[in-house]
């Protein structure tokens, strides 16, 4: 009995923790590095503001490239959901766009595809929260985009969320159907309580057990009980069907829950657009130095000289100090301002093909748990290599990928 009780308590606490998972599942670094680096490659993520009030709307927008080298162990993104990590609905999502198209469901993403997104959020509960855009990938997990701390001011009671149904009726989402639902629960609850009290008012367990053993069954269930039973047997189904019929007539336009996916095609190529071609020949990770060395062959087909400005992966940005491009990033993306160096700093001329070494070096490899790659079953790295022309006017992005060789000393 004691062990049963303990088991029950364990199960109960388990169920409770399941309930609360939505509140705390952040898991930015929990996912294997190869998934974070080679699935959704975020860039240019911007939040319109970080301080706002209840009922005010903010916008998070940005772009992402879906890696060509999608890990074989992750199912293809046939149903991907662009989500927001929040501790419950402290804000609501009022609009969401992919490549300029409004959409509400999941979509199929194409590996190699480029997308831009925009999500409009409306403050609901005052407080300070860490919020990310992220992708729910089927059977893979949550690939987080860059997060920010949002501060919502104001009063929760002021929150309004009114929506117009297709009939033109304006409804308040916060209370719609609540009193009707409570009414039916109370209605059936009262009938059930009546039935229970009908029996409970008499002597119960010991008395009835003894009488049953003594063969006094007829006294346990009386004629009156049976009459009430018959009334319930006929009356309850009639009530159920009647109320059901009335509801059907009251809402003749009701439709089933919608279950379709949205169909949105990628933008014309933004990353790997064929202007600057990059072939990654080799990647080595030196553990003591926390440095990733890439040997890359670059072919500049643009009409301008270009320089390597940045390597970005899994919300970490390694910047080349020698190229002073503007960093407009108000998110919590980890930035290594001097993290990127190249063996030949001279700009790559138009039409030039050059093989060069790029080193991305910073403790962030370790603190962001990206170095776990070398011990994983899939130790291929992926990320975005960003080139700028010499006047920092134009940007070319390549999504690179290579197996990583660990170097222990």
């Amino acid at each position, binding site marked *: 009995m004691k062990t049963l009780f303990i088991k029950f308590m364990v199960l109960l606490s388990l169920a409770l923790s399941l309930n609360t998972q939505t509140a705390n599942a952040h898991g930015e670094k929990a996912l294997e590095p190869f998934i974070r680096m080679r699935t959704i490659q975020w860039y240019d993520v911007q939040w319109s503001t970080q301080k706002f009030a209840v009922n005010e709307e903010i916008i998070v927008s940005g772009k992402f490239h879906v890696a060509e080298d999608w890990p074989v162990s992750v199912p293809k993104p046939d149903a991907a959901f662009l989500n927001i990590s929040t501790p419950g609905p402290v804000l609501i999502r009022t609009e969401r766009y992919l490549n300029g198209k409004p959409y509400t469901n999941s979509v199929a993403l194409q590996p190699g595809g480029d997308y831009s997104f925009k999500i409009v959020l409306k403050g609901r509960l005052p407080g300070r929260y860490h919020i990310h855009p992220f992708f729910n990938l089927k059977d893979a997990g949550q690939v987080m985009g860059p997060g920010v701390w949002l501060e919502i001011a104001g009063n929760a009671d002021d929150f309004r969320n009114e929506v117009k149904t297709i009939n033109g009726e304006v409804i308040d989402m916060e209370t719609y159907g609540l009193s009707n639902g409570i009414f*039916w629960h109370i209605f059936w609850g009262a009938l059930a309580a009546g039935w229970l009290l009908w029996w409970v008012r008499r002597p119960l367990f010991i008395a009835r057990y003894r009488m049953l053993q003594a063969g006094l069954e007829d006294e346990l269930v009386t004629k009156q009980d049976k009459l009430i039973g018959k009334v319930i047997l006929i009356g309850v189904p009639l009530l159920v069907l009647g109320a059901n019929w009335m509801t059907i007539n009251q809402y003749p336009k009701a439709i089933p829950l919608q279950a379709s996916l949205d169909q949105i095609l990628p933008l014309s190529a933004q990353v790997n657009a064929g202007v600057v071609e990059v072939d990654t020949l080799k990647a080595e990770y030196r553990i003591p130095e926390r440095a990733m060395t890439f040997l890359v062959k670059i072919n500049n087909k643009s009409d301008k000289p270009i320089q390597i400005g940045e390597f970005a992966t899994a919300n970490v940005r390694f910047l080349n100090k020698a190229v002073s491009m503007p960093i407009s990033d108000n998110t919590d993306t980890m930035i290594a301002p001097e993290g990127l160096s190249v063996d030949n700093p001279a700009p790559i001329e138009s039409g030039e093909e050059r093989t060069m070494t790029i080193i991305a070096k910073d403790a962030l490899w370790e603190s962001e748990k990206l170095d776990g790659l070398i011990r994983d079953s899939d130790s291929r790295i992926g990320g975005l290599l960003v080139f700028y022309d010499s006047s920092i006017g134009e940007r070319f992005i390549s999504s690179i990928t290579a197996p990583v060789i660990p170097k222990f000393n």
Partner: protein
Amino acid sequence: MSANLKKQFFQPYTGEKARISRAYDYLILVLALFLFIGSFHLHFALTVGDWDFWIDWKDRQWWPLVTPLMGITFPAAVQMVMWEKFRLPLGATLCVAALSIGTWIARIFAYHYWNFFPINMVLPSTMLPSALVLDVILMLSNSLTVTAILGGSAFALLFYPSNWPIIGMFHEPVQYANGQLTVADLFGFQYIRTGMPEYLRIIERGTLRTYGQYATPLSAFCSALLCTLMYTLWWYIGKWFATVRYLTKI
């Protein structure tokens, strides 16, 4: 000793003995209520789970199939004990009432106050009409077979019509993002659930779809058939649990 003799010599408890016996009744009832609130609610949350948590999961195909099937389990077992040992036809109603109490507590505290969801997004469903009918069928028939077949079927068939008055208005269409959604779907889109992407909803999938508009009645009849089997199974589970070992000396 023949049954008639037994009847003749039966002495109901009086005085102090009757009072103690009555106190014992209340003790058992209160304990049973808490036990069922905890265990049945847990069982339900783990088996039916999301289908019953969220307004945008209460679909016309899987929800009316799964919910009664998992909902008839405890009622069958408790009915067996209450009826066979005490001729009390209230097992199902007691269980489902306890489940309703547990569910409401969870929705209000865990979902609304703790995780900030509006209560209308997580309105519980009701199985009380189904349970009442199940109890009276057992009382009037005094038969496992009849209750399993008629009661089990009624339990499943009454489920969707009992709940449509609660959820029907959430199926009103809304024009949104260049398409139409139900109000329920809109809850799923607007009120952010981090751990629950839209594609996780298991609605309108599988072979039942072939019958198009008749998805719900088909699901309900399928559930009715399975409920008869489930009822019988859990009746015997109840029988296996209910031992009179400790009652022999009374």
